[in-house]
C-alpha cells in the first residue's frame, strides 16, 4: 500500500517537468492512500483485549499500546512467548478499505483546444474505489525476540515489503537496550503509519515528505527506512530515546543509490498533569546525505548503476514535538526546520572541479503541524489537522539568473475527519471513516506556475481482521 509518498513540489517553468509532476500527482490520486497503518487484531486476539486498550482510536496508539510496542510486543507477564499460545495461532492481520472518494484540482495540465500544446483546467473525478491491502504479521518469536513483516500492496495488488524487521528486546534485562534491524518506521512520535486520515492528500504528513522545488533526490522522514536501531525506554515508558544508523536509500531495497549512511535520533519525555492526562515533549534530528551523480553509468549519461552514487551532499531535518492532553481533547504540535545542501537544492552533480550555479544556496524551510482530536468515547473520534510549510531560503537566491520566488513551494494543508467504530472487540476492527482535505501550494501549477489547490473527499469502511 505504501508507495512514493513524497510530496515533491516542483516549479513549473519547464513544461516537461511540470507535466511529469502532474502525472505523478494523478498517479498518486489513483493509487490513493499511502498508509499501511498498523492496527493488529492479531495482538488483540492473542491477549484478549479490545482494540481500545492499545489504541486511542485505531491505528493511533494509546500510551499503553506504545509501551506494549516498545517492550517488543510484550505485556511482560511471562506469557508473551509463542509457546504459551495455541499451536494454531498465527499472528496475521489484514487491512483494506473500500471507499468512495472525490478528487479535485483547480489547475490540471490538459491539452488545449487545438491539441498543439498544454493549458490548465479544473479536473474533478469521483467514484467507488479500494485502498491497498496490508498483511501484517508481527509478535514474538520467543521472550524478548520480536518481529514484524508487512507485505503491502497498492490497489492493483502490486506488493512490496513495507516493513521487515527483527528485534532483540530488553537485552541484559534492561528496557534501555533494544536492538532492531531491517526496514522499519523511524521512531517518530507522531507515527505516519498510524495516521488517522486516509485521503490522497492527508494519508501522509506533508511535513514528513516535503522537498523544495527542483530537487532530484528522494527522502521522507515518514518513509520506512532500512537500517539498525537502538531504542531504550524507562519501564513506565515515560522516557524514550532512540538512535538509528540507516542506509541512505530512503528505504528502497537493492541499494539503488549510494553507499552512504544516515543517522536519526529521537528522544522524548512524558509527564503527568493531574487529571488532564499524560503530556509528552520531545525532539528529533535526521542527518542524511544523498548522491548527486553516479560513479558508473551504463547506457549513457543519467543511466546510473545502482549503488554507485557519489558526490554525496548533506541534508538535515529537525523537529520539536509536543503531545498535549486535556482529558478527551488532545493536540499534537510539531515545529520542523530543514535544510539541504545547495548541490541537492539545485540538483547539481558535485563532480570533481564542478561549481555551483550562480546564486545557489542551501534551501531552508520551516514547518508546523497541529493535529487535534476529540475522543467522545472509544467509538468516536473527531480529527482536525493543519500543516504549513514555509520556505525561508530558496535554492536559487536573488543573485541567480532566474531566482525562485521567495514563497515558491509553500504549502498549507487542512483536514477534517471522523472515525466511528460501531463495535470494539478483541477479534476485529471496523470503522466508518469520513474525511475532507485540501492543500494549497504556491507557484506549482503544472503550466502557468501559479498557485495550485487540490482537495479530496473520502468515505470508507475501514476494516481489519
Amino acid at each position, binding site marked *: 500500500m505504501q508507495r512514493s509518498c513524497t510530496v515533491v513540489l516542483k516549479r513549473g517553468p519547464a513544461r516537461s517537468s511540470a507535466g511529469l509532476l502532474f502525472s505523478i500527482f494523478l498517479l498518486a490520486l489513483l493509487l490513493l492512500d499511502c498508509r499501511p497503518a498498523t492496527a493488529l487484531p492479531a495482538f488483540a486476539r492473542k491477549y484478549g483485549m479490545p482494540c481500545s486498550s492499545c489504541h486511542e482510536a485505531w491505528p493511533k496508539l494509546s500510551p499503553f499500546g506504545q509501551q506494549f510496542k516498545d517492550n517488543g510486543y510484550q505485556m511482560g*507477564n511471562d506469557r508473551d512467548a509463542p509457546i504459551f499460545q495455541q499451536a494454531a495461532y498465527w499472528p496475521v492481520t489484514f487491512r483494506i478499505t473500500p471507499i468512495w472518494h472525490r478528487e479535485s484540482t483547480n489547475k490540471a495540465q490538459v491539452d488545449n483546444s487545438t491539441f498543439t500544446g498544454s493549458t490548465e483546467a479544473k479536473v474533478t473525478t469521483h467514484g467507488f474505489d479500494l485502498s491497498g491491502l496490508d498483511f501484517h504479521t508481527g509478535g514474538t518469536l520467543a521472550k524478548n525476540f520480536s518481529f514484524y513483516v508487512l507485505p503491502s500492496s497498492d490497489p492493483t495488488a502490486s506488493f512490496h515489503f513495507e516493513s521487515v524487521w527483527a528485534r532483540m528486546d530488553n537485552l541484559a534485562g534492561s528496557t534501555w537496550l533494544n536492538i532492531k534491524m531491517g526496514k522499519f518506521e523511524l521512531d517518530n512520535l507522531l507515527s505516519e503509519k498510524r495516521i488517522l486520515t486516509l485521503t490522497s492528500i492527508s494519508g501522509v504528513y506533508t511535513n514528513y515528505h516535503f522537498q523544495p522545488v527542483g530537487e532530484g533526490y528522494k527522502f521522507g522522514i515518514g518513509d520506512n527506512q532500512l537500517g539498525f536501531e537502538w531504542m531504550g525506554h524507562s519501564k513506565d515508558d515515560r522516557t524514550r530515546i532512540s538512535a538509528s544508523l540507516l542506509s541512505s536509500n530512503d528505504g528502497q531495497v537493492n541499494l539503488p543509490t549510494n553507499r552512504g549512511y544516515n543517522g536519526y535520533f529521537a528522544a522524548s519525555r512524558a509527564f503527568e498533569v493531574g*487529571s488532564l492526562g499524560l503530556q509528552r515533549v520531545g525532539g528529533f534530528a535526521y542527518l542524511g546525505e544523498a548522491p548527486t551523480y553516479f560513479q558508473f553509468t551504463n547506457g549513457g549519461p543519467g543511466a546510473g548503476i545502482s549503488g554507485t552514487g557519489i558526490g554525496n551532499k548533506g541534508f538535515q531535518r529537525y523537529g520539536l514535538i509536543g503531545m498535549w492532553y486535556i482529558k478527551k481533547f488532545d493536540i499534537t504540535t510539531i515545529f520542523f526546520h530543514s535544510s539541504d545542501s545547495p548541490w541537492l537544492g539545485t540538483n547539481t552533480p558535485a563532480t570533481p572541479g564542478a561549481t555551483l550555479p550562480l546564486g545557489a544556496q542551501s534551501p531552508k524551510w520551516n514547518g508546523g503541524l497541529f493535529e487535534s482530536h476529540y475522543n467522545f468515547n472509544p467509538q468516536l473520534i473527531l480529527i482536525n489537522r493543519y500543516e504549513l510549510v514555509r520556505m525561508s531560503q530558496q535554492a536559487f537566491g536573488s543573485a541567480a539568473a532566474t531566482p525562485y520566488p521567495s514563497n515558491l513551494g509553500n504549502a498549507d494543508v487542512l483536514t477534517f475527519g471522523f472515525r466511528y467504530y460501531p463495535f470494539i*472487540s478483541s477479534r476485529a476492527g471496523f470503522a466508518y471513516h469520513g474525511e475532507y482535505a485540501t492543500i494549497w501550494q504556491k507557484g506549482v501549477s503544472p503550466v502557468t506556475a501559479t498557485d495550485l489547490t487540490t482537495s479530496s473527499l473520502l468515505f470508507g469502511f475501514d476494516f481489519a481482521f
Partner: protein
Amino acid sequence: MLNIKKICLNVAVTLILPVAAMAQGGDQPAAKPSKHMESHIGNLTGHSEAGAQLYYRYCWGCHGARGNGDGENAPYVTPQPRNFVAATFKCRSTPTGTLPLDSDLFNTLTRGFNFTNMPSWAALTAQQRADLVAFIKTFSARWVAEKPGDPIPIPPEPKLTVESIKHGGELFQKLECWKCHGQEGRGDGPSASTLTDSNDQPIRPFNFASSNRSKCGRTNQDLYRIFMTGVDGTPMPSFADVVKPEDAWDLVHYLRTLQVNNASPELALWAGTKEGAAIINAKKVENTYTGSGVNP
C-alpha cells in the same frame, strides 16, 4: 505451633466467602452498590465517574460490562478475570476475607498479575489508576456495607542466616506447603491437580522455580504478606494465626532458595553450603532454554 484446624478453616472461609458474596448479589442484597465512589491513594483521590470511561476502554473485554468477570474474552482467559461484584481480591495487605485497601488495588493495577492475562497498567497515569480503583468499587455492595480490613503488620526482616533457611525448610514440610507446591516448589505437589479457585476453575499452585515474580509482588515483603493474608479466591490460605512472624521470615528465606534460576542473597548463601549446593545443583535443569522466559 501448627494448627491444622485453623488452616482448614481458613481454606473453607477463603472458598466459601466468594460464593456467599455472589449469592448476596442475588434477589435481596443487603446493600446496593454505590454509583459514586472515591479512592484515596496517598495524595490522589480517584473518582468513579472518570474511572468509568477508562474501564470501558481498557477493562470490560475481560471483566465484563457489569464487572462480574464475564467479558467477551472470559471464556478464553485462564485464570478467569476477577469478578468485581464478588469483591474478593487476591492481593491485599488486609486479613483474609476483608476488603483490600485502595492502595492494594492501585498496586495491583500498576503491577499486573504475572502468568495471567492481566498486564501492568503502569502506562496509565497515577490519577487514571486511582480513578479506575474508584470505579471498580461501584460494582459491589461490599464497598458500601464494609470497610477494608486493617493492614497486617510486617516486622523488619531478620538477618539472613543458613539456620533461618534450614528452619524455613522445616516449616515448608510442617505446614505441608509441599502438598500443593511440591517438594521442589515446582507447583507439582500431590494435591496440585485437584485444586480449584472460587470460580470452580482448576488452578495451579505457584511454581517457585519458574520465576521470582509471584502474582502479588516480587519482594521478600510481598512473600511475607502473602503468607499472612492468604490469596483470597484461591486455595492458598492465610497463615496469620498459625505462623509466628519470625517463622514466616524463615519461610521466605527458604522459598527464595527454591528459585534456583533467579539470583538472590538467599540462594547465594544456601549455595555456599555443601548441603545447599548439592540440592541446588540437583534441581537445576541445564541446556533446555525454551525461549519462553519461564524456567523449566
